[in-house]
């Protein structure tokens, strides 16, 4: 596709985005405003992640795109195709082989390495947004580290429900400074955020980029007597038998019988390839 520049965006725009990424890496957890462009897919479909990936990709990169942990969900397919067309980079479904992974709502189960970059699609980058709708106010709250409101919210959860009633997009504190929205990943994934890979977060519609350098300290907010708990469905994967992976629940018939399968399709495949079989699985051919 020669009508467009490598990875669609023009070089000026990429430079602008890279500056925002570098600033984000320098101030982990801080939301850097950037002049987000209109992309050829709608806001809400990952325009922030796509712009960050476009500014990050080089012709030698290998790209993996997942949505809900899976490579074959429609929007993951669509974004992967977009970069195949506009950047001509090679793509993969194998987590270990990817140098750039764009994700929506999940962190892969396999540990990532120092030579990998994980790009998150972010709908609402502001962790305080649903406590205070005004950007002018929340920016001030971050500047002053005024996070009391968030703790009050978590406390109210406990007093009403007996537990912190946040299951995804569970807020974290980065290097003891900024409270950050981890994007809508299940809280099961939160502990993985202290990782070797670079993590970049792009929110297109909200015009914000933020980042975590490798091995950044990321702490899920909690209380001493109500510690954070990474939870998942209390089952093994019915296909590969994994006990340690995040599971999707699938309704099988009218009687409502269920099965649980790994949300990370590549993790599940690699386990089955290695001979692991779950309750309803078969040996890989």
């Amino acid at each position, binding site marked *: 596709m020669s009508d*467009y520049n490598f990875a*669609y965006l*023009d070089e000026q725009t990429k430079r602008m985005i890279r500056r925002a990424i570098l600033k984000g890496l320098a101030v982990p957890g801080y939301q850097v*405003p950037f*002049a*987000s*462009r*209109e*992309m*050829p897919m*709608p*806001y*809400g*479909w990952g*325009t922030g992640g796509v712009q960050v990936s476009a500014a990050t990709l080089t012709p030698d990169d290998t790209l993996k795109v997942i949505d*809900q*942990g*899976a490579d*074959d*969900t*429609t*929007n993951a*397919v*669509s974004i992967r*195709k977009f970069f195949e067309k506009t950047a001509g980079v090679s793509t993969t479904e194998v987590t270990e082989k990817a140098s750039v992974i764009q994700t929506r*709502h*999940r962190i892969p189960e396999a540990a990532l390495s120092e030579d990998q970059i994980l790009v998150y699609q972010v*709908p609402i980058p502001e962790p305080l947004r649903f406590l205070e709708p*005004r*950007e*002018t106010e929340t920016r001030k709250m971050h500047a002053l580290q005024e996070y009391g409101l968030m703790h009050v919210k978590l406390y109210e959860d406990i007093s009403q*429900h*007996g*537990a912190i*009633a946040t*299951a*995804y*997009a569970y807020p974290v504190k980065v290097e003891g400074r900024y409270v950050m929205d981890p994007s*809508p*990943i*299940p809280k*099961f994934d939160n502990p993985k955020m202290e990782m070797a890979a670079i993590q970049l977060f792009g929110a297109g*519609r909200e*015009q914000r980029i933020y980042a975590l350098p490798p091995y950044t300290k990321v702490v899920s907010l909690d209380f001493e007597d109500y510690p954070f708990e990474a*939870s*998942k*469905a209390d089952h093994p994967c*019915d*296909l590969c038998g994994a006990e340690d992976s*995040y*599971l*999707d*629940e*699938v309704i099988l018939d009218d009687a409502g019988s269920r*099965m649980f*399968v790994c*949300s990370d*399709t590549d993790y599940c495949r690699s386990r089955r390839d290695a001979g692991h079989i779950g309750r*309803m*699985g078969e040996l890989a051919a």
Partner: protein
Amino acid sequence: MYVAVKGGERAIENAHAWLAEERRGSKEVSELSLAQIREQLSLAVNRVMAEGSLYDPDLAALAIKQSRGDLIEAIFLIRAYRTTLPRFGCSKPVETGKMACDRRISATFKDAPGGQVLGPTFDYTHRLLDFKLAADGEVPEAAVAEPRREATPHITEFLQGEDIIEREPFSDAEPGDLTREPMSFPAGRAVRLQSLARGDEGFILGMAYSTQRGYARNHAFVGELRIGCVPVEMEIPELGFAIEIGEVELTECETVNQFKGSKTVPPQFTRGYGLVFGQSERKSIAMALVDRALRWEELGEDNVGAAAQDEEFVLSHADNIQATGFLEHIKLPHYVDFQSELELVRKLRREAEELAQTLAAREAAE
């Protein structure tokens, strides 16, 4: 055995093929040409140009055809195309005072230099379905008047002569551009106007209407509404002077609003301003009302807490491409997050039931 749903790629291709077929409609009906859309659906073309922020009637017509007449989808196509265009520079400010007016009306003076020119307006049509149009769209030629040679002065100039309306401060400062810089608040009037000009017509209309119904009421007179073409000039550094690079059709609305005066400012009229590509009357009037409502602070008025006074609220929600994207994205898969909510609700219910049982057992024992 359960097999994970595969084949997203083929599903997408099939969906696209079906979509293309639906767009074309019955092949027994001849295909719509871009020229037909441009000439006969010109107000739709205008809206797409205005909210797409790109003045190109042919591309707007193409976008309308491609989007099956979904104008927000068409605006989106134009925006996505626009963002790939290089920016060579900026034009000189257009002189709307020199507009070749097709329409020019004032609600504040019975007559004024330049006259009241109705132009091609729906205003006094009776909204009766014209069944003849279903069979035959040919029309007799409309009467033609001698075009006015001299410029048509702005109505507000006459008020300004009397010093009874606020003066617009002159500025040569380069206005901000929300397509190049992230929006931040306070945005300033220039960026505000840019945002309103490309904002959703329905949203701006609703906001403006709310001010008329008393949410930050500031009664507006349409001092003037004019529609017509203006030349666009650009300074070419190599030439050292400005040359005309084209012509655009614009709708401009200036409202004259009541103002009691404050400690520092004597009683005088104030202004609201609307400027939109093409013939877009409703949008330009609405824009002027919202502009005026947003100026409460600079004019020393009270913030009565109305939505239309709230710059961050209005500007953050005016863009229909942002709004529709975020709204519609909730149809994308969210089953990972839903799963985590399921687990949480199940756990909370389990705990609540256990607690109830413990309490019941204790009561029975007592």
